[in-house]
């Protein structure tokens, strides 16, 4: 039977202003996890009942650990940021479907925006061939060396121009004439929508990892839907980000919202 586990925290430290990296001892999750999946973290504060979905940033199957990178944006992530080495946190996972990796693709474009970046790191570890990673941030890039150490070419855009290109990630991609066989992207919906349009006009297949507010995280409550339409369908459907996603083909997603 599946169950929520109490996972021991090996490390929990700030890596950029308001951005934390947490390593959890979680053998069962590490064993099963694939890039693009996420976990539910549960709060200790009794006022906060719902799990916080956080993408798996790195999976270490030998050590039985997973790494999460999260931004402090509210009370739940604020609580997590206070946890210390040796504390435990309740966690459930791996959840969701993860990226679908096609061994035939040899030239990869990986696009991350802000806290959408972390799940792409584990993905890149699984990609073979040429990899261009385009990352957009407000001011503080994260994980740059990590991507570079995997042999990827990293291109950075910051909104305020504090690092490298000033502007958004799509502008950067256009400027650098990004090209490849496939795109993997994770980030704010508006960014994904823009990159999706670019991918369509350049006829490059693209997988996107979506976010939505969740209650159960396991597909039972139908709370976390996105509008989708498969080619073969006549009508659009509300599908579950937690169970049918978080990764979808960009052509399935209806971006109108």
């Amino acid at each position, binding site marked *: *039977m*599946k*169950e*929520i586990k109490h996972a021991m925290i090996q490390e929990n430290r700030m890596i950029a202003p308001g951005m934390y990296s947490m390593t959890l001892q979680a053998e069962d999750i590490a064993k099963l996890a694939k890039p693009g999946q996420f976990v539910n973290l*549960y709060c200790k504060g*009794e*006022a*906060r*009942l*719902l*799990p916080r979905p956080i993408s798996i940033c790195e999976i270490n199957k030998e050590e039985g650990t997973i790494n999460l990178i999260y931004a402090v944006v509210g009370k739940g992530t604020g609580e997590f940021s206070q946890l210390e080495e040796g504390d435990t946190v309740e966690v*459930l996972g791996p959840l969701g479907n993860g990226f679908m990796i096609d061994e035939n693709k040899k030239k990869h474009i990986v696009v991350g925006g802000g806290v959408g970046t972390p799940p792409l790191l584990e993905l890149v570890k699984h990609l073979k061939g040429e990899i261009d990673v385009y990352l957009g941030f407000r001011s503080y890039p994260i994980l740059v060396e990590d991507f570079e150490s995997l042999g990827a070419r990293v291109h950075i855009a910051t909104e305020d121009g504090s690092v490298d290109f000033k502007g958004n990630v799509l502008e950067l991609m256009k400027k650098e004439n990004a090209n490849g066989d496939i795109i993997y992207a994770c980030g704010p919906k508006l960014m994904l929508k823009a990159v999706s349009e670019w991918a369509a006009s350049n006829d490059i297949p693209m997988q996107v990892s979506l976010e*939505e*507010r*969740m*209650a*159960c*995280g*396991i*597909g*039972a*409550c*139908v*709370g*976390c*839907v*996105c*509008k989708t339409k498969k080619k073969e369908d006549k009508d*659009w*459907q*509300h599908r579950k980000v937690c*169970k049918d996603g978080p990764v979808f083909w960009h052509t399935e997603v209806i971006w109108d*919202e």
Partner: protein
Amino acid sequence: MNEKTLDLKVEIGGVVLKNPVTVASGTFGSGREFSEFIDLNKLGAVTVKGVSSAPWKGNPAPRIAETYGGMLNSVGLQNPGVEKFIKNDIPFLREYDTKIIVNIAGKTIEEYCDVAEKLSHADIDLIELNISCPNVKEGGVAFGTDPHMAREVTKEVKRHSKHPVIVKLSPNVTDITEIAKAAIEGGADGLSLINTLLGMAIDIHKRKPILANVVGGFSGPAIKPVALRMVYQAAKAVSVPIIGMGGISTGEDAIEFILAGATAIAVGTANFRNPKATMDVLDGIKEYMISNGIKSLNEIRGII
């Protein structure tokens, strides 16, 4: 006294549940996801998410907002329609030794009757008539807030259903006993309460409601005092079995509802925090019975 000697059976509309613990519709799907966490055989019944005659798409996202000790949802009864439900979910649930309660939704009396009719030929145990969903504009909530409409829809669904009918009441009313009595006049074999309160949450940074639908159904531990009060009032006003729900997450919570007069209880939002919540509630009920020398819940039901 030990677990073996406890008599946990309860009866609703002639159907015997092995124990009083079921789940709140919409929080447990059709049990498939939770069957990976708990043994469904241990539940008195599985109450499935609301089904309607045709497929419903539900409301736009975001559909979920967290509140202090509770949550809001505006799912809006997304479901694949009763036919797909019968085909896909009933065979799955029938593999387990538990009763099946099917929550039904409609926008008109005809739609409700249509679902009930289609379910009459299906292998299920009880129908739960949802006249109280705050997330559906047409019908839904009006049936639950107007005694006349509550009576009419119950009467018609009873006429079209081969299965006993439990009517699920909305808490968003001035006088719950009035609606409870109307449902009984319509022929209800039992009552479920409460459905969600109508609530709202605002994102002060985006300066707009968190839910795309603006308002949503409010559930979870926060609402328990209202639920308990209404179950108490309804149990005093009518004599059919009541499935009590609203914020139950422990055995102690469940006992409160039984003392207030509930025959069975349902675990809802608690499933999201703790996928084993139903089992914890069941164990808690048993522990309470054992440590208080209670052989059957009949000894304490409604004694308040």
